[in-house]
């Protein structure tokens, strides 16, 4: 078992030591004062500050110490790590449209994913594959068609770092392997700063990129949804009004009536082309064999001068842009490749921050156990106090009886 924040455990130990010391010390030092009628005060033992040679209430002390240690352990976030490796490997597979051969990509992924601690598949988005599904996901890569999504290495690296924070307790070092065609379109402005966040080297495994013929521009077919002319859209039960629509960097502000909404099942060949301000899709682009179809679920306002505005003209140009015009399947330069690979050794787990935002599974159990112990300690303490009070009352009755007899 290891702890994400062992400092809390040390602090709990220090607090426990304090509790033990306080337990062995009598906590209450009565202030000494004169009272002429003190003879009428019952003669019970007076407490003073001194070390108790024979500690009483050891059960209470034990309960308190265990409760404090459990709370400290809960804050320290323990993790059960049955297997500890020297090197844990994280594999990032770039399955974007820039890949030339999905079979080659799958072969490379299968080679590196064997025994890996984490597998991340990415195109424009990145997601981590559960460890039980490594083989299935890699097999699916070899059979499915190439993605239509543009590749982006930045989110892939960020996802890898998150996985690194999770797997850091399983090994001493972490190896990061990126399998990608490393085409220029998968490189964005955030790549360099994101790469700098990874504290070790990155093993770049380059696969064949798609041919430049695939990058040719194809005219787009534009469909304005009217009633039921597209299976991707359905009519809203209650149309509402929104104030703008956005397609990439073009924004048109106008009082649109939102009559349609996308159907819930969109396949992998369809992507969102335009959105409403609340994030809901306003336009979809579907890749076809001959090019692409853009269906727009928006209705232009009938009144006003919207059609005359420059924003509308830019939106219209964006809608009519040829499909695939931004494809750039040329390889990243060697200099950039070297920058991605980095220098030095593998990333040490000391340089990777642990995951702090999520509790480990043991934490609720530890806190529950601590709560139970605190309640039990309260119960035991009350029992002890009641016993002491009964004893004192019995002594008082004996004293009175002796006085009366005298």
């Amino acid at each position, binding site marked *: 078992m290891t702890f994400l924040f062992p400092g809390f455990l040390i602090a709990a130990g220090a607090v426990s030591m304090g509790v033990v010391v306080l337990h062995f010390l009598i906590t*209450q030092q*009565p*202030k*000494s*004062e*004169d*009272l*002429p*009628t*003190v*003879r*009428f*005060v*019952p*003669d*019970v*033992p*007076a*407490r003073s500050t001194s070390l108790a040679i024979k500690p009483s209430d050891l059960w209470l002390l034990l309960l308190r110490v265990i409760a404090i240690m459990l709370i400290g352990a809960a804050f320290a976030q323990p993790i059960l790590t049955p297997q500890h490796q020297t090197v844990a490997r994280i594999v990032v597979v770039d399955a974007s449209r820039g890949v030339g051969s999905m079979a080659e990509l799958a072969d490379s992924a299968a080679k590196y994913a064997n025994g890996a601690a984490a597998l991340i598949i990415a195109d424009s988005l990145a997601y981590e594959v559960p460890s039980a599904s490594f083989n299935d996901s890699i097999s699916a890569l070899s059979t499915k068609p190439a993605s239509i999504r543009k590749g982006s290495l930045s989110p892939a690296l960020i996802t890898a770092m998150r996985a690194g924070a999770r797997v850091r307790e399983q090994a001493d070092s972490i190896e990061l392997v990126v399998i990608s065609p490393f085409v220029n379109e998968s490189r964005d402005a955030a790549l360099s700063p994101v790469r700098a966040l990874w504290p070790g080297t990155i093993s770049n495994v380059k696969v064949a990129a798609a041919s430049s013929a695939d990058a040719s521009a194809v005219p787009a077919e534009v469909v304005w949804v009217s009633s039921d002319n597209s299976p991707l859209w359905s009519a809203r039960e209650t149309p509402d009004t929104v104030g703008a629509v956005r397609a990439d960097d073009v924004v048109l502000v106008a009082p649109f009536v939102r009559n349609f909404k996308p159907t819930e099942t969109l396949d992998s060949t369809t992507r969102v082309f335009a959105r409403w301000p609340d994030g809901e899709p306003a336009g979809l682009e579907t890749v076809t064999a001959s090019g692409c179809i853009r269906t727009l679920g928006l209705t232009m306002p009938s009144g006003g001068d919207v059609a005359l505005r420059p924003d509308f003209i830019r939106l219209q140009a964006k809608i009519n842009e040829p499909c695939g015009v931004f494809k750039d399947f040329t390889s990243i330069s060697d200099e950039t490749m070297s920058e991605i690979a980095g220098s030095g050794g593998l990333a040490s787990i000391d340089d990777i921050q642990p995951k702090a935002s999520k509790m480990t599974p043991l934490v609720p159990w530890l806190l529950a156990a601590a709560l139970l112990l605190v309640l039990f300690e309260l119960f035991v303490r009350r029992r002890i106090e009641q016993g002491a*009070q009964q004893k*004192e009352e019995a002594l*008082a009755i004996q004293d009175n009886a002796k006085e009366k007899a005298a």
Partner: protein
Amino acid sequence: MPLLASDSALLDSVRSIKWPARRKSPAGLAGGHLSKVLGVSAEFTQYRGYRQGDDVNRIDWKLLARSNRAYIRLSNDRTVLSTMLLVDASASLAYPSDTNEKWQFARAIAIGLASAAHRGSDPVGLLAATAQGPRRLPPRTRRGVVHEIASVLGEIKPEGSPDLAPLLPMLRSAGRIAIISDFLGDADALLKVAGQLSASGKEVHAIHVIHANELNPPKKTTLLTDPEDAEMKRPMTENTRRRYMSNFQEWREQLARDWIMTGSYYNTVVTSEPLPHALRRVAIPQTTSGGTGG
């Protein structure tokens, strides 16, 4: 030691208080208290048959003419009552240690009673039981005796554990004895001697001085020490406080019963009450055969 300004204010506040005798006083100089001896004053009381040896001038001739029997007129005589104050100056009176409020209150009670007695033309004196030995002022009627008593009491610092019982027989000549104490010392021996004095016709007043904190101690945990016995230390906690108050009340009730049984007049005065109220309760008769107050 000159009279303090506070003592002057005290004397002003008790100017209207008188301290009449609870019993008829033995014969003595003319004063304000009823005497046991019937005299020849103008205040007629009763007739008595003429006996041989009586002064013939006291025969009521008119009554003799009507009844043909000789009677002499008798009248109440009034006399003075010699008063002695026995003041306890033990360490238990020096409470709280910073203000000595309990001792100051006992001193004020003594001065107030001396003033009340002196105002009735009674000779008044003082016997203070101190750790250095008794301080005595014989009973006098002269002007300034109250100031002398106040000065002597002002010079005394309450300390030690002087016994009161051995001093009480020194006051046999007084007709009225007022014991001002907290009765935490030799209370049993004192009761015994006081009972003898009371049986011999003396008017004995037991004035029990109690500090308000003794009746209702502060609700805080403290280790208490007896000022007269440094070895006696007891913890005052929430539990022991209840039992202390119960024990103390039981002791006070028993003490009051014991003093009344001796034929003495027992009163409790608490430092939190106004002094004139406390003095009136001590001086004004409540019962004919002893009483309690407080």
